[in-house]
């Protein structure tokens, strides 16, 4: 790359940016793996396969496997609705979907507690029928759907409104039916944004702490997701164990960043 002579202001600003990145982003990342591995690889592996941590990993993955596909399908449906049709209440619909993203995770947990909990709206009904939602994996799935509801739609709506409807109208005028149009025209056009939405949704679902800590009850080996397990281990003064559990989520975060970087450069061509 050809670079013209840099001014002193430019050099100072670039140096400052790298200094900030080193102390705020790189060293914290290094610390996680350094602490996770500080007692050696054998201890690290033992910490990961410890039954409660292993169960937390399993529960976290299962939650993501349920939540991500649902929110991708709903996000695509919603984006289709608001970018392809004009109707009353359209802007309101977008605002409602955005709402969970601007709420504190604790509040997200609390609203679910007041729907399904013993003190909640449906509590007496659930109790009378012997059903339990609160403090089960189902509650974790529901609250995760809630906190990540806007993520896919947020990626799709700007893209689909920018792309317009010409391709789809052409397919229909050539005799394609609705589903053929969707599979052969719409889906290829939005596939990268869909993957991107899935990556962001997954990162948040696996890492959600506040909302899940309210609704899960954090029962060891039963309703403890990885972020809750990290908190438990830390409170038990098992710092190495906490960092071992944290390293798994950190790996997912790093993969998320790499995928995001690749997908963004694809999108910009």
């Amino acid at each position, binding site marked *: 790359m050809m670079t013209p002579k840099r001014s002193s202001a430019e050099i100072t*600003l670039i140096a*400052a940016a790298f200094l900030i990145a080193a102390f705020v982003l790189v060293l*914290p990342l290094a610390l996680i793996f350094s602490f996770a591995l500080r007692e050696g690889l054998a201890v690290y592996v033992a910490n990961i396969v410890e039954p409660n941590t292993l169960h937390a990993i399993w529960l976290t993955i299962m939650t993501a496997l349920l939540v991500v596909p649902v929110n991708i399908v709903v996000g695509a449906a919603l984006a289709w609705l608001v970018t392809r049709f004009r109707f009353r209440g359209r802007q309101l619909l977008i605002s409602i979907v955005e709402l969970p993203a601007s709420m504190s995770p604790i509040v997200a947990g609390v609203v679910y507690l007041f729907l399904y909990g013993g003190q909640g*709206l449906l509590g007496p009904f659930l109790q009378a029928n012997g059903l339990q939602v609160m403090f089960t994996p189902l509650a974790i799935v529901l609250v995760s*759907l809630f906190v990540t509801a806007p993520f896919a739609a947020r990626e799709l709506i700007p893209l689909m409104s920018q792309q317009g409807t010409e391709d789809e*109208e052409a397919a229909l005028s050539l005799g394609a039916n609705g589903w053929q149009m969707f599979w052969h025209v719409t889906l290829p056009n939005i596939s990268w944004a869909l993957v991107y939405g899935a990556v962001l949704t997954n990162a948040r679902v696996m*890492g959600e702490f506040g909302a899940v800590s309210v609704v899960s009850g954090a029962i060891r080996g039963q309703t403890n997701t990885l972020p809750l397990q990290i908190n438990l281990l830390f409170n038990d003064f098992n710092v190495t164990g906490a960092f071992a559990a944290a390293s798994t*989520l950190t790996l997912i975060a790093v993969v998320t*960043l790499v995928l*995001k970087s690749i997908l963004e450069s694809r999108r910009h061509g």
Partner: protein
Amino acid sequence: MPNQRSKHLLPGFGLTMGISLFYITLIILLPIAAMLLKVAGMGLPEFWRIISSRRAIAAYQITFSSAFYATIINGTVGLLLAWVLTRYRFPGRRILDALVDLPFALPTAVAGLVLVTLFADTGWYGQFLEPNGFKVNYTQLGIVLAMAFTSIPFVVRAVQPVLEGVDESLEAAAASLGANRWQIFTRIIWPTILPAFAGGCVLSFARSLGEFGAVVFIAGNIPGVTEIVSLLIYIRLDEYDYEAAAALAFVLLLVAFLTLAAVNALSAWQTRYVERSA
């Protein structure tokens, strides 16, 4: 009827409307309504007693002031990073650009664990800071840093695209008319990026107000000193004081509504600005 056809030329209106309304009702509106019903059922005097208690007011003060300081940090750092990433070409730029999103990708509990370890009195940073009087863990400074860390990307990502779009011919024209670099920044660049910058700051502030995971690790949670609103709600739930939890959650929910309104207003301002200058 040609008019009818052009209105619903594309298929799937009924299906996507059905899916969207079903999902929004079941997953988003019903739970929020349940909490609002709980709050409505408790009566105004009781509601007021809870949200104006001394412990609650102390929690608002700590939360709002910490979020304010965190936003000032993020406004400054975010502007610097956005500027460097869009204006300069240098080796490592793409990696730096990707790294900026780390605080969003990293779970808040992991962020909290890392920060409390870094700033412990024997930690990588704490061993140098504590002898010089900067105690971070279990102080408000820790809350500010946790909030700032988890919301770094907001300002960067809001300002970056606008900064990329600043018309360089305007800058060249100003320079040819004898404007110095500072004048070009304050007269041309700053007015253009201001709406986006303000929007990023509001998002950063809102996120900081609600941040829980990172803060609980580092704050030490001392009532009246380092107890944020989210944590007070959590403690009330633990004590089975559901009314107090609902009332305080309602306050935070109201703040979220106001934030969303502010962000919408700012993005309308930006759209107008772009259209006017185009």
